[in-house]
């Protein structure tokens, strides 16, 4: 397990961090997002989608009601939201195990509602630090997660 903690000063910066993360993803991966309402999970996902090459013209919207939104980038992006789910049995009904990992990138919001979703992943916890400030805790599990986190750190630290 490898960890990294980073602060962002605005929604734009959270979005930029997501964009860098999207850019370094080269193979199927699982990203688990946790954080309170309004923490910025969808904001980060919007950045990840752009980094993955989902066209700017396509809005990345909340999947709370639809449960999963699919976007076409360099790799397919599966944007899940478990907010409305009540019990783990419903995950099975969603056919979620096919996406963890599947042929694309699965971003799962409210992942903390279901333990042990995936053995190899990058877990990201977003915490409020003020109206605009956020702290993001990254935790990489398994080889794919670790490689991803290293690549993200390197790109983020080299940005101008």
């Amino acid at each position, binding site marked *: 397990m490898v960890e990294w903690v980073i602060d962002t000063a605005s929604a734009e910066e959270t979005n930029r961090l997501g964009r860098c993360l999207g850019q370094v993803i080269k193979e199927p991966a699982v990203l688990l997002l946790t954080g*309170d*309402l*309004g923490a910025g999970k*969808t*904001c980060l996902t919007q950045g990840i989608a752009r980094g993955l090459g989902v066209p700017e013209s396509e*809005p990345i*919207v*909340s999947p*709370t*009601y*639809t*449960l*999963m*939104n*699919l976007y076409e980038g360099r790799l397919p992006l599966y944007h899940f939201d478990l907010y*409305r*789910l*009540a019990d783990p049995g*419903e995950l099975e*009904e*969603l*056919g979620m195990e096919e996406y963890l990992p599947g042929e694309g990138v699965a971003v799962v919001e409210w992942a903390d509602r279901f333990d042990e979703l995936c053995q190899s992943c990058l877990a990201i916890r977003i915490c409020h630090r003020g*109206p605009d400030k956020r702290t993001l805790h990254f935790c990489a599990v398994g080889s794919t997660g670790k490689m991803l986190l290293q690549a993200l750190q390197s790109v983020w630290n080299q940005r101008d």
Partner: protein
Amino acid sequence: MLLLTIESSCDETSAAVVRDGRQILSNVIASQVDVHALYGGVVPELASRKHMEAVTVVIDDALRKAGVALGDIEGIAVTRGPGLVGALLVGLSMAKAMALSLGIPLVGVHHMEGHILAPLLEQDVPFPYLALAVSGGHTHLYRVDGIGKYRTLGRTLDDAAGEAFDKVSKLLGLGYPGGAVIDRLAAEGNPRAFDFPRPLLKKPTFDFSFSGIKTALLYYVQSQNSPIEGAHLCDVAASFQQAVIEVLCEKTLRAARDTGLERIVVAGGVACNKGLRRLMGERSAKEGFRVFFPSPILCADNAAMLGVAGDAYLTAGCVADLDLNARANWPLDQAGWPQQLLP
């Protein structure tokens, strides 16, 4: 034509019998609680298994309530998308099996197309018109030039309006479904008590954003030392609702002015919201626009709404093959008439 229609795109399993695309003979929704409370979202019965358990029951019930025999049905319209593939496939597979065994034609209909044509089941709304489709999963503005002829003018860039109602309801400890509760409290409160943001209101586009209102309310709740209750709670609910419905009304009327469309249809679950109905009604009247709202049961996800487009397509000979597939992502602009059948 006498149509059987089937809807299973999200939480509700529904079947209806509709004559000539205008007359509802029956409209059965499986998880039908109080229809007035059906907007803003309910705890999901998303599981395909639950749709499977319900689908034959609602179809039998729809036929029985309509007083027609299975052999009387002349065609089937079914929601093809957008939605969860697993959920869509339940309705779609049932529709195909019935079309094949009964030897009758089948057509796939877009879920939002159903919503924005729903008022035609109750009254005559001449084309073209502007449609605001607003629910737990959608907040879209469409230009509707006729059945099967739609263009997206604007949409939410983050949360749907109904979702904002539900999440705010949860923040205030009011539970599910949030839309009805907030609407009721708002009626008792002062909509000017607190100034929540009106995102994108000044932007010249027809797009919406509701995520920021939710977050502003979160910070307000966190800034309070004591629980928000009583008259204070009503004021917060009223001020939040006012922010959402003002944005919805202002953007819709701006689109009506810009496009020159004189009629406005408001559809989807949030169209049940009394505050929205009142404000949209007042502002439209002031500017000379006519506004149409479906009855609450036609605002919820229901199968009867598929009858309008389904009947038009089948009557024109626009019939789907039995390899018709569900479409999880399906922009409304890509739905409608196949080119060769454009009337």
